[in-house]
């Protein structure tokens, strides 16, 4: 299976199953299209005779044949059996999303946690519950050494002392059990101060700083509870924080919605503020919400991704490039095929923990009791749910089998699927289309930057 497309003047060809990416000239692009339809060279010569000299067509076909023989074009999907065996393996828990505070000092309109409360009551995680969660993680992590813990919310800085105490507890326990905790923090910045920054720079492998972009966009979606905007308060603090981390190991992380479909301007605004690690992602919301992304928004969104990609190339060439999380693709050392095809690990390797110690398959399921999977005292109770989540992978979704993007999204997000289809093992089509577009842009950027070398 190949995927070919034209973008920004480049003829791109992705050989889906090997992951090989080729930039080709016009004659090869057309030859490949016909080869993909199963045509032989005589037929191709006939079909293209008015457009290219016969020798050119022949040479292009020869090069395609060489790549095919080298396993870089028209390769088969040889992974299905291996992934099914891989999915049967006993899994370990390797990451927890700790809901340190089900409370928030902002009232963001699109919050899937409903102002931090997750359809429930306001609550802060106690140190005792947090310790039990870390103990559970250590005990269920098997031989895996690196353990990830994200301090999430609501707003985790509303329960900051417990965050610090849990980090101290984790550091103590990792020595005893030969583990390595990687802590991360997601914050809206309202309570961010020098003390928090200093602590995070010492202890947190990554910090995610929530900001949506331009002031009017940010303040509209991310107001305080009484309605005032939060942009002016957080921007200088985030800038200082990013600098203090040497512009690395952090993300400014925004959400775009139906109200700012021109989100490329928001990404570039964040870049203009000096941020180098940027992630701006589409809102995930039921279609009934006014701010939800709709099918008819897609052409505008695609155009925005194109605008952004071109501007990123330009800025890179000018020496003022930045990273955009959704365009990051590692063509030389990315994840192995098992990782690429076996799903995100929600409900198996990754669990969310509520302030009172309940487990959910991931942060997006928190509050939906159908998905209450266990707790810190009893461990995993609903093994039937674990099995369902374990089966979420690329080969369990028929749409993925014909999709060129399947090695990059891993079959998509189970929570997105559930929100839109009522099943965890389906696909969220609007999300798929955006993902496909982002991959096309990301590969084109690679082609453009390779030209410089």
């Amino acid at each position, binding site marked *: 299976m190949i995927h070919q497309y034209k973008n920004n003047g480049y003829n791109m060809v992705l050989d889906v*199953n*090997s*992951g*090989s*990416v*080729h930039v*080709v*000239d016009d*004659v*090869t692009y057309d030859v490949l299209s016909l080869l993909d339809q199963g045509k032989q060279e005589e037929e191709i010569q006939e079909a293209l005779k008015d457009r290219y000299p016969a020798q050119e067509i022949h*040479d*292009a076909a020869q*090069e395609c044949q060489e*790549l095919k023989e080298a396993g*870089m074009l028209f390769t088969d999907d*040889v*992974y299905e059996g*291996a992934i099914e065996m*891989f999915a049967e393996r006993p899994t370990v828990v390797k990451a927890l*999303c700790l809901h340190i505070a089900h409370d928030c000092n902002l009232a963001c309109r699109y919050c899937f946690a409903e102002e931090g409360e997750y359809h429930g009551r306001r609550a802060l995680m106690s140190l005792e519950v947090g310790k039990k969660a870390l103990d559970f993680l250590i005990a269920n992590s098997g031989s895996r050494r*690196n353990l*990830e813990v994200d301090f999430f919310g609501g707003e985790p800085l509303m329960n900051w002392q417990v965050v610090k105490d849990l980090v101290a507890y984790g550091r103590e326990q990792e020595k005893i059990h030969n583990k390595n905790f990687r802590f991360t923090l997601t914050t809206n910045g309202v309570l961010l101060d020098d003390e928090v920054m200093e602590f995070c720079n010492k202890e947190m492998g*990554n910090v*995610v700083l929530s900001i949506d972009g331009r002031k009017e966009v940010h303040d509209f979606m991310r107001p305080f509870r009484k309605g005032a905007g939060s942009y002016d308060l957080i921007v200088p603090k985030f800038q200082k924080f990013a600098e203090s981390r040497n512009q690395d190991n952090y993300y400014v*992380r925004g*959400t775009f919605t139906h109200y700012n479909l021109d989100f490329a301007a928001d990404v570039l605004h964040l870049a203009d503020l000096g941020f180098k690690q940027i*992630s701006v*992602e*589409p809102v995930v919301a039921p279609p009934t919400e006014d701010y939800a992304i709709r099918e008819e928004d897609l052409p505008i969104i695609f155009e925005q991704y194109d605008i952004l990609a071109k501007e990123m190339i330009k800025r890179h060439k000018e020496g003022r490039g930045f990273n955009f999380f*959704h365009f990051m*693709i*590692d*063509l*030389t*050392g*990315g*994840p*192995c*095929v098992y990782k*690429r095809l076996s799903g*995100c690990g929600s409900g198996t390797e*990754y669990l969310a923990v509520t302030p009172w110690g309940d487990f959910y398959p*991931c*942060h*997006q399921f928190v509050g939906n009791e159908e998905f209450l999977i266990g707790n810190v005292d009893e461990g995993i109770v609903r093994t039937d749910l674990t099995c369902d989540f374990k089966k979420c992978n690329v080969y369990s979704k028929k749409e993925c089998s014909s999709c060129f993007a399947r*090695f*990059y*999204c*891993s*079959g*998509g*997000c189970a*929570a*997105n699927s559930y929100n839109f289809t009522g099943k965890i093992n389906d696909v969220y089509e609007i*999300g798929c289309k955006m*993902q496909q577009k982002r991959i096309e842009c*990301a*590969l084109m950027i*690679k*082609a453009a930057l390779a030209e410089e070398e």
Partner: protein
Amino acid sequence: MKHIKTLNTKSLQNTMKKGGCGECQTSCQSACKTSCTVGNQSCEHTK
């Protein structure tokens, strides 16, 4: 090659042999939290 420029030489098939150790980062712990972004993660062994 005259007509084709290949941007990468590492094939996904090769990662079948040594892959699957599971030490890599969980995708939602990176930045996303609302999407499944795996292709941009790095392998623990190539860091």
